[in-house]
């Protein structure tokens, strides 16, 4: 396993921050061609964990500030060049604190070039009482590229006071480079309505989107069985416009959901890259 130099972090005033990561294939390995990471973002050094796929670069994205707070406006840009292989994940769930009427916005912009593999597999956010989180993601994926994207949340009320999160909303757009829309997923839920039918009896939910050519997709049934085997309740389906697969996942808690998301990543990685990927330490 080899590593890249540590990233540099810079303090910004206030809580608006941007991170830009550009991954490129050079000398048979994916390297970070460009990175700018502003506080509270922090990325670890890069890891090459998979002997069978030595070009696959794995980075852990962290929050250096103990989570997401009211008024945070965070933006992450990821650009994966042609034929590169990049996996961005987190070491643990991110806590989302009380939004205090200002809310928290996390935007992602992802570009995946021809023949590239990109997995952005974050652990679920933990929505504390009053949390008001908006996720806004746009991804542009080349015809023969692979994108694995997972976003989710778990409800957490540490004092058992019956005070839920305020709101969770998500906006996802996936396009081809020519602007053709492949998939749109927009939704929002208020905390006091989350357990009244939307989530069934569960306390955690996620969506996995896998954009890939048909011969690089896992079997829908197998994917569902493996995720269910982690204690989740999942439903997988072919995506609109022959884009790949989508999966909704429900779980009784964030830990179970995180295990289900990890399992989904490994099933997708095996199908897309042709070999089992090493378990990522968390």
């Amino acid at each position, binding site marked *: 396993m080899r590593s890249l130099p540590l990233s540099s972090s810079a303090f910004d005033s206030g809580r608006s921050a941007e991170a830009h990561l550009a991954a490129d294939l050079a000398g048979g390995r994916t390297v970070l061609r460009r990175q700018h990471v502003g506080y509270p973002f922090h990325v670890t050094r890069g890891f090459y964990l998979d002997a069978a796929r030595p070009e696959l670069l794995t980075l852990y994205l962290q929050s250096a500030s103990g989570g997401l707070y009211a008024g945070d406006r965070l933006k992450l840009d990821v650009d994966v060049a042609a034929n590169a292989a990049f996996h961005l994940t987190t070491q643990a769930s991110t806590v989302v604190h009380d939004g205090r009427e200002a809310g928290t916005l996390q935007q992602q912009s992802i570009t995946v070039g021809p023949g590239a593999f990109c997995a952005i597999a974050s652990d679920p956010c933990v929505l504390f009482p009053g949390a008001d989180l908006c996720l806004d993601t746009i991804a542009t994926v080349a015809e023969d590229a692979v994108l694995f994207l997972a976003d989710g949340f778990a409800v957490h009320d540490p004092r058992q006071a019956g005070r839920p999160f305020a709101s969770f909303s998500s906006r996802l757009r996936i396009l081809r480079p020519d602007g053709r829309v492949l998939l749109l997923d927009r939704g929002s839920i208020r905390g006091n309505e989350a357990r*009244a039918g939307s989530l069934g009896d569960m306390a955690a939910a996620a969506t996995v989107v896998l954009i890939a050519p048909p011969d690089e997709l896992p079997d829908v049934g197998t994917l569902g069985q493996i995720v269910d085997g982690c204690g989740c309740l999942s439903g997988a389906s072919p995506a609109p416009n022959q884009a790949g697969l989508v999966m909704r996942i429900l779980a009784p808690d964030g830990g179970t959901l995180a295990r289900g998301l990890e399992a989904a990543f490994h099933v997708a990685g095996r199908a897309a890259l042709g070999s089992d990927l090493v378990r990522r330490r968390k």
Partner: protein
Amino acid sequence: MLSTLRALWQADGAFPSGSFAFSYGIEGIVALRHGLDARELKRLVAAALKHRWASYDRVALLRGFRCNGDLAVIAAVDREVEASTLVESLRVGSRRNGASFLASHARIGNDLAAILRDVVRSGECLGHIAVMQGAVWSSVGLDENLAQLTSGYTVASGLITAAIRLGAVGALQGQEVLADCLPLIEQLTMNETPLELESFAPFLDVAAARHAQADLRLFAN
């Protein structure tokens, strides 16, 4: 008065719109829960109305209604519904329902329905049910409010009828649930119309996706 009568005509389960074969995922929910009582059914129908119909189907319906028969605009709304209906069985069911709805109206002499049926056959439009209902209902004399009420009622009654046919609840229990949902439908039609199609009903999506993988099914979705 005539527009109200036309709304009743379109909400009537006897109108051959093809929706009798669709359970909106409720067969999957009955299977997941190993049954369903009237209280749970009411909760589910309310969740489907609030978190799927009001912010998604209702919006698609209103956009179709406001197209004034402009096929290019109808096709654009239709494509947006296609891209944002993530579960395949719901996508296919919505298109199939839309095709049946257009066929029925075309056969009883609605010119716009006949044109839409042809453009769906040619692939120019996809024919999602909410968009087609909006477009055609604007041509048969319903106003926007009646179109929304008719749409909300048919979704609620479709879910409840499916639950009755599956034996999850009795016929009278189902009617009690439907009666309880009517004020909610009215309230939701008065909500501001979102600019974008939005839905947050992961439990319904999970149930519909799992149902599509099931070996034995009574309903098409």
